[in-house]
Every structure is written in C-alpha cells, then in structure tokens.
C-alpha cells in the first residue's frame, strides 16, 4: 500500500494531480479490491527516452518505471541514428539522453526546450565540472565542447552568457577516454599520446573510426610529438585539418594502422585477438578485455584525457502532464541509483555524492577513489569483473577530470573534416 500513502515527487510538485485524483477515486470505488487493482487504474504517463547503449539499458528504465510509476520506454540507437532522430523527430520522444558535443546543432535547432533548474531537485548537488568547467579550483577546463560552454540558456532557449536558471541539458553520466594497451606487447608503460604514432608499434595500432573523435585522438598524438600545435583541438581550422590528415595519410601508407574500429565490441576484439598492441579506447572496453583474461591497461597520458559528457534533454514538443513526467524521470536519474548502476560500468555521475550511498564502500573506493579493490567487484549485471587488489587505471575521479585536455566536439569545419577523413581511409 505504500504507493497509495507515499506521495511521489510528481505529486508533491503539482498538488492534487490528475493521477492523485484518479487514485483517490479508484481507491473509493475499488474498496476492498486486491492490492494490484490501484496499479491498473493508475493513469501512468509514458516517457519515451532515446540514447546510446551507455544509458539506455533495460535494467535502468525498468527500475525507473518501478520507482516513479511512469511507463519509461527506452530506445537505444547507434550514434548516427540517434543524432538524426533527436534533431528531426522530436515528437517521437520526450527525453533524449544526449551529449554536450551535439549542442552546436541542437541549441539553434530548438528541438529541445530549456530546462528549468528550479524543477531539478538535486541541481545544487551537480558538480562544478559542468557549471564552471573546473572540477576543483585550478583544474584544467579543456578545449572543445566542454559541458559548461553549452549548458546555460535563457528562458527562450537562446544561449546565455553565464550561469542562469535555464539549461540545455541536465548533466549526468560522463567519462574520459584515452589509450588502451597490452603491456606484454608494448613492453613499456604508455604515458603519452605520442606513443600512438611510435614506430615501435607499427602495424599494431588502431584508431577510432569516428571522424570527429578519431582526429582529436590523432591531434593529441601529433601535438605530444611536437609536430603540430593546435589553436583548439575541439575546433580545428581547415589548415590544421589538412596538415593533420596529411600526416595520417603518410602513416597509413607506411602501414602504421592495423585497423579502424567503430563499435565498442570491435575495439575489444582487436585487443583480445592480439591484432593491436595499442589503440584509442573507451574505459569500459578495457574492463571487457580484462574480463577475457587478456592483459590491458588504460593509459593516463600526461597530456590529459579526452572527456565526454552526457545529459538529459527534453523535447520542445513536451508540455503539461508529460512535461511533469519528463522532469520526474530526470529527477529520478539524479537520485543516485542510476549513477551507481553506470558507475559499475566505469562511468561517472555529475552528482556523485548522491551516488555514494548506493555503492558499497569498496565499490566507491575502487570506481571513484582510484584505490585498490578491497574485494572482488561485479558489473551491474552481477558478473565479477574486478579482482581483489586491482586498481582502476587512470587514477581517481578527481585526477582524471581535473586534467581534461579536450572534450568531444563538433567542429565548425565538420563537413570538411569528414571529407578529409574519407581521403585518409581511402589512402
């Protein structure tokens, strides 16, 4: 009977909602009925949410449905399909679990509505990484589409010059990527992005085949080698792209690259099957390689990592009760449970202090603290993935995020970049 007596977030905000009215009516009408009856007459709002496989996971949306009494329907898409759908079909979803590097397109398109932070329960608990760009005072803000550069909006949806009441997305899960390597193959510790182009690993290197991100990893490499200096790696000029692609084409012709991967699974396979010694990699992929019994280390390059940040956006088509429900789903994401779920896959949450109670002490110390695992730890589905004594590569949360070199970005010269990238792959 807890559902009847305990008001939901939704109800406390809007007073006597339609749902509460229906409930009360149903309660009196169905007096003496079974416990299950109220759930049936409960006029649940349906929330359709779209995103990548990072956050659209059955267990998460089912749990959200259970906790909020909303009917949350998730659809996981590939990156290209997600981009097209969130931009062109905003009547087919209420929520997008999107990424800050898409904001140069999404904010002017007005496909999403500004989110009122006054309606976000844990807004003040969200860290400064997204609000000011500096996780701790003195942290590097990083080049490119850092969340704080795309967060603040005016009430009408236009960009605000500084902190305001309205935001483009509520920042949630995020991570920082770098290089993954097999220490038995490299025979040394990898501490710089320059190693990506080291002749020692010729023919044993893979790059991520997403032009926008692959070029950034490559740029980190040539900059670390001292070959080039970029004004902003998150927004390269045509001349910079030309020079970088010229270098990459030369390397490709020398046979430096073993492959270019597109999906998480491909990157895992390349490492597990021994095809590559070193490659650009996502953090959970390193965990997956280790789960296969193949040694794999996640490098913490001295130049810093490449960060990315996700969040929750609301379609501009959503109004009324649906809008209340959309806010309810976002608030649910910030209550800590979902943050703990994604933490066990290696992702971080913007309001990490709410996540802490949902993780065991050992889990918190390992995933956020960067300390050795005090016991064997499991992924969110219960499969053991971390052995006792293991240390997460890349250090603590703070170590990673106070030294972000560049954030995933959408460049102004994106079309040119894709063209030159095509030339690189065909070379």
């Amino acid at each position: 009977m807890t559902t009847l007596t305990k008001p939901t977030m939704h109800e406390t905000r809007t007073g006597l909602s339609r749902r509460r009215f229906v409930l009360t009516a149903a309660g009196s009408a169905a007096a003496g009925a079974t416990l299950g009856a109220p759930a049936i007459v409960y006029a649940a709002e349906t929330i359709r949410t779209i995103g990548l496989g990072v956050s659209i996971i059955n267990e998460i949306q089912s749990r959200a449905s259970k906790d909020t009494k909303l009917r949350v329907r998730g659809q996981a898409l590939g990156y290209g399909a997600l981009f097209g759908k969130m931009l062109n079909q905003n009547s087919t979803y209420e929520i997008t679990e999107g990424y800050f590097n898409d904001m140069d397109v999404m904010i002017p398109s007005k496909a999403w509505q500004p989110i009122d932070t006054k309606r976000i329960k844990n807004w003040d608990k969200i860290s400064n990484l997204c609000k000011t760009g500096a996780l701790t005072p003195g942290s590097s803000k990083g080049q490119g589409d850092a969340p704080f550069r795309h967060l603040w909006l005016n009430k009408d949806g236009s960009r605000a010059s500084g902190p305001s009441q309205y935001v483009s997305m509520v920042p949630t899960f995020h991570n920082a990527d770098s290089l993954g390597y097999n220490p038995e193959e490299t025979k040394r510790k990898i501490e710089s992005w320059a190693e990506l182009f080291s002749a020692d690993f010729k023919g044993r290197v893979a790059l991520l085949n997403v032009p926008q991100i692959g070029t950034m990893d490559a740029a980190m490499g040539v900059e670390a080698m001292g070959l080039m200096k970029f004004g902003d790696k998150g927004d390269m000029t045509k001349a910079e792209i030309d020079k970088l692609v010229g270098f990459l084409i030369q390397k490709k012709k020398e046979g430096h690259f073993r492959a270019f991967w597109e999906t998480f699974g491909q990157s895992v396979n390349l490492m597990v099957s021994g095809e590559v010694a070193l490659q650009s990699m996502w953090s959970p992929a390193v965990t997956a390689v280790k789960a296969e019994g193949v040694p794999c280390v996640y490098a913490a390059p001295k130049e810093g990592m490449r960060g990315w940040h996700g969040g929750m956006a609301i379609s501009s088509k959503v109004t009324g009760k649906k809008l209340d429900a959309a806010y309810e789903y976002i608030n649910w994401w910030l209550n800590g449970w979902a943050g703990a779920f994604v933490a066990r896959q290696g992702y971080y949450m913007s309001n990490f202090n709410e996540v802490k109670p949902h993780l065991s002490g050992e889990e918190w110390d390992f995933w956020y603290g960067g300390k050795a695992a005090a016991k064997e730890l499991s992924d969110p589905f219960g499969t053991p993935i971390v052995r006792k004594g293991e240390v997460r590569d890349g250090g603590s949360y703070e170590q990673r995020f106070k030294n972000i070199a560049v954030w995933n970005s959408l460049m102004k010269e994106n079309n040119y970049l894709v063209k030159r990238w095509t030339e690189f792959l065909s070379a």
Partner: protein
Amino acid sequence: MLETAPPHAKEHQTDRFHGGLIGRQPTPPQDVSRLKKSKRDQGFHPGWLVAPATTWLIVFLVVPLIGIVVFSFWTPKSGGMTPDFSVANYVNFFAQEGFLDTDHRNFLKPSIFVTTLWTTFRFTFTVMIICLIIGYPIAYFLAMQVKNFKWQLALFLLAMVPFWTSYLIRAVAWLPMLGRRGLFNKMLQSLGIIDKPSSFFLYSEFGYTMALTQLYVVLCIGPIFFSLAKIDKAIIEAAKDMGATNFQVFREIILPLSLPGVAIGMIFLFVMLMGEFATAVVVYGGKTSTTGTVILNYYAIANYPFSAVNAIMLMLAMMIGVVFILRIVDIRKEL
C-alpha cells in the same frame, strides 16, 4: 499454311518434329472464344492482384526515392537542410578545390567521392570475376555431373548452408581464421613457412576480397545452376553424336544457354557488392571507404543533401552496370 491446314494436320506436324528444349507442347484448342470462361471463373481482376505490391512500392520506394532526389538539391546547413535549390552538392561530389585552377595541385583531379565510387566498383568487379570463376564450375558440377536429382538438390542446399546464418556472423567468422592468432597463421607457423604471425591475411585487401567472395558466391551459383539444369541433355547428346568435342559442346551449346543465368547472377552480385559497407568495416578494419560508408558518414553529421547525392550516384552506377550486363545478354530472348 497453318491457317489453311486442318486441325489434325497440325497435330501430325508437331509429332514429326523433335520436341525441342521444353518438350512437346499441348496443341491449343482451335476455337478459344467458345471456351471463354465466365467472369467468376477468371478470379480477381489483374488490377487487384498488382495493387498491394504497387502500393507498397509507391509508398516505400518511389516516394522516398523522389525525396532523395529532391533533397540532393537542397542546401545543407548545420544540422539539417534548407529548401534552397542548389547544384553545389553535385559540384562537390565531382570536383574539389582547385579543380579548374591550372596552377593548383588538385587541377582536374577528381574528388575523393568519385575516387571512392571507383574503388567500390573496382572491388565489385574483382569479386564478380572471382565469384564467376569459382561459382560456374560448382554450378556446372551440380547440374551436369550429378545425375541423381535428389543428390543435385541435396548438394545445392548444402551450397546454400552459409545463407542459413546471418550475414554478420559469416563476416565475423573470418576473424579467427585470418587473424594474427588465427588458424592460417597458426598453420603456417607450425609448418615452418613463417616464423612470426603475418598481418597479411586480415584487415587487408586480400582478406577483404576473400571474405566478399565467400559471402556472395552463392548468389551466382544459384541462377547459373538453374539455367544449366534447364539445358536439354538430348541436344548435348546430338552434338556429340555429330562429332563435337567436349570443348565444342561447352562453347557452342552449354555456355550460350547458361548465359542468362550468368547474367542474373552477375546482376545480383553487382547490386549487392556496390552497396556493400559492413564487410569493409569487419574484415578490412575500416581501412577503405566505400560509397556506402560515405553515405553513412554524411548522414551521421546530418548533411542529408550530400548523403542523397552519394546515394543517387551509387544508384546511377548500379543502373549503368545492370544495363551494361543486360546489353551483353538479352535475358528476355534467352529465357
């Protein structure tokens, strides 16, 4: 002569001649109008029969196709397009910066998109030839050497077995075969032919061509097998009786009669291979671009007009290819 000859004379005439490729045909009744069936017996009007398919094609093929053509002339903007008519997308497809500038390094150099379409065609053509070289003898064996119909069918189904699993599984299965720690490398190493694993087999042009051949060869075995199986054995016997050598029989009879099957098989292969993009990612490690991947890449950055231009060019290339194949073999006539 036919008009004046009485019915029995005509029947007699067909008796005297060889039944031909398709055997003896029943003589049509003389007075067809007398036998005209009642309207109810005729069943549905043909219009009703083609209506579902036509509607489906119009809604899901013709309309989207028109959309693609229209969008290809629109102007891309950051995250979408505006309906401003422009041929710039087509210019960008063919030419690149400095195309008409005699001093420029890109002078009269076709753009990467033309080159990519050409690369796509080159791979397609190579694989088609290899498939033909491998597929024809298999089809020949099935149709000509295997005498028992049950065995023929069983072996043909066996050739189809790879099609029972998903395309992706068939492509991915090459990884443990060709990889650095794969079967090939292990075998060559244990035989002492190479001393350390070779990167030659996987993520290479060799591996890509090999995988494409294996993935698509069945598409040409089928049609060739059917057209070979249709050849009347009596003709071959007759030719041999008249002193033709095996090679002459093949060149003069079997090959020409199997050409429609070859043409259909080649059309299947051509269309499928030109649109290929997944195998390049899985088996070639993304180390090449096909027009398919270019379309995807521009779709992913919401430059729909340019994706549309590439799609149209790919479609045109496919049409030209199909027309070319049909010019060599007149399928209608041969069938």
